[in-house]
């Protein structure tokens, strides 16, 4: 009997690694399905083709399915995200020219968000031209993370800079050609900018918000309801691919697979940087072991509190209004219940709670778990703020007045 076949859409990003590895290492087949990967050219295509059912599942920006459920997307097909593809794995890169101004303003080049943001604020105050920064899609971790960093550094993202949208693979060249002053994107496109266009990494997602979410595997709610076994198999395959990818003994092999022409089509050495955490920021080479966390610290678990944080930022930047009903819709998009049920046969530890407080832990710490013990990574925001998912409204209010 032939196995059921799933079609998955993805964009050329290292974050697609867990879907790619599930396919390339035969994990999908072991979980009872075959995976066909289709590389897409824009997030808009991923959004529409997933909503229309051309893709059964897709690598999505974690806020995309939330936006669909809040009616912010054109084809508002209800979506869910039952498994995450890891934490971190993106950065903010600036042009050589902007970096030299930031360095003059005191940026140390150590990739720490605080001092880099302070230097950028000083450059913006003394530059008559409005700097142009790019993100990859409006409802993206990149947009909210860049805006968070700017705002907490005293820069108004809507007034002091211009934010534009470009797809990931086009960013390095646009920066090199002088059309952009900086961008926030997933790997390998920061490292490509550094290697090929003299760019500098200003700071990393792992410094703005430690061990924070970025992308998920998204799917239509009705498809998930009709195919519960395939949803569970997908969750297990992504989880197991993450386990394999987290092991440092496999980093080289993972980089070789991802570097291939069907996926990233970039040199292995550049792809390996984020996997190994050996980041060349252009100023100095730094070891950032948690730059990309494919699996450790429950990295694949869809925390409802993370969905609520995305929602808080959608409200903050005027994309949607605040209401208890909207907050509930956002939280319901992430499905920890499906995650736990799918992993039960593996006998692994899973978080016992759906929500957690972010920003309060500076170190690794234990979390209540089912089926064993589970240690989470640190989760501080660089400005020291705390996100309590039971007080979303007051969090939004505090950001509006700051």
């Amino acid at each position, binding site marked *: 009997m032939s196995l059921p076949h799933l079609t998955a859409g993805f964009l050329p990003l290292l974050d697609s690694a867990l879907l790619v590895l599930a396919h390339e290492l035969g994990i999908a087949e072991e979980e009872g399905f075959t995976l066909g990967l289709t590389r897409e*050219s824009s997030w808009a295509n991923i959004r529409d083709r997933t909503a229309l059912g051309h893709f059964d599942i897709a690598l999505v920006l974690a806020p995309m399915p939330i936006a669909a459920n809040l009616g912010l997307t054109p084809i508002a097909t209800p979506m869910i995200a039952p498994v995450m593809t890891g934490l971190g794995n993106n950065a903010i890169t600036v042009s050589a020219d902007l970096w030299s101004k930031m360095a003059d303003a005191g940026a140390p080049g150590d990739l720490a968000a605080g001092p880099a943001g302070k230097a950028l604020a000083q450059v913006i105050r003394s530059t008559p031209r409005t700097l142009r920064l790019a993100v990859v899609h409006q409802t993206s971790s990149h947009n909210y993370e860049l805006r968070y960093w700017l705002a907490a550094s005293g820069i108004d993202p809507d007034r002091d800079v211009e934010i534009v949208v470009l*797809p990931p693979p*086009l960013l390095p060249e646009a920066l090199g050609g002088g059309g952009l002053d900086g961008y926030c994107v997933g790997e390998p496109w920061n490292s490509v900018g550094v290697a090929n266009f003299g760019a500098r990494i200003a700071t990393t997602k792992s410094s703005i918000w430690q061990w924070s979410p970025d992308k998920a595997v998204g799917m239509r709610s009705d498809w998930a309801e009709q195919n519960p076994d395939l949803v569970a198999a997908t969750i297990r395959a992504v989880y197991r691919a993450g386990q394999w990818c987290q092991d440092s003994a496999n980093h080289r092999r993972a980089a070789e697979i991802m570097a291939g022409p069907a996926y990233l089509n970039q040199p292995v050495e550049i792809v390996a940087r984020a996997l190994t955490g050996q980041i060349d920021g252009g100023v100095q080479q730094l070891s950032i072991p948690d730059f990309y966390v494919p699996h450790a610290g429950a990295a694949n678990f869809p925390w409802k509190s993370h969905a609520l944080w995305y929602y808080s930022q959608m409200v903050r930047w005027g994309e949607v209004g605040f209401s208890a009903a909207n907050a509930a819709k956002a939280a319901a998009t992430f499905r920890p219940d499906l995650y736990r049920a799918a992993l039960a046969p593996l006998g692994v530890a899973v978080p016992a709670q759906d929500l957690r407080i972010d920003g309060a832990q500076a170190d690794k710490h234990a979390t209540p778990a089912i089926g064993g013990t589970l240690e989470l990574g640190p989760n501080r925001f660089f400005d020291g703020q705390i996100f309590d998912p039971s007080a979303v409204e007051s969090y939004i209010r505090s950001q509006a007045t700051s």
Partner: protein
Amino acid sequence: MPSPDLSILIIDENRIRASIIEEGLREAGYARVAVIHDVNEVGRTIALTMPDVIFIDLENPKRDTLEHFFSLSRAIQRPIAMFVDRSDGTMIEKAVEAGVSAYGVDGLKKERVKPILDMAISRFNAFSRLSRELEEARSALEERKIVDQAKGILMKTKGLSEPEAYALLRKTAMNQNRRLIDIAQSLITAANLLGP
């Protein structure tokens, strides 16, 4: 009924396809059709032509750029959104399948847009069909060249006539349960390795 007064903008990096669609719309009576090949020009073009309907090909990686531009209401005088009529889901599905995405200004009536969208979809499909046929013809030609070259090698090295060389290739392919073109390719590779 066409609404010839509507202003239409086509964004397509593929110049041939763009001109095929433009021509179709003009033939159908739409006089106000503008074409650009780079999303970066969209701001200027929108200010000039005030389009009611905008098409962009789905291969275009700058769809996100375009949508973000529309979302900045200050950039354009009239709100533009992806054209989706929920009462007619098959229409948008047909468009995406054909490889085109459509946007319209707020409040535009479905009946006015439908003939335009239908035209764009059928021209996109016709273009894909043409491209496919062209690709098939091209690869058939390539294959014939390879087979001819392999026949030439056999004729020279084994002193065979052309029909005998072809028969030998065909027999070998059948015996090995492989395609003729693969046998011919292997023969050429081997001859290159062994040759002077």
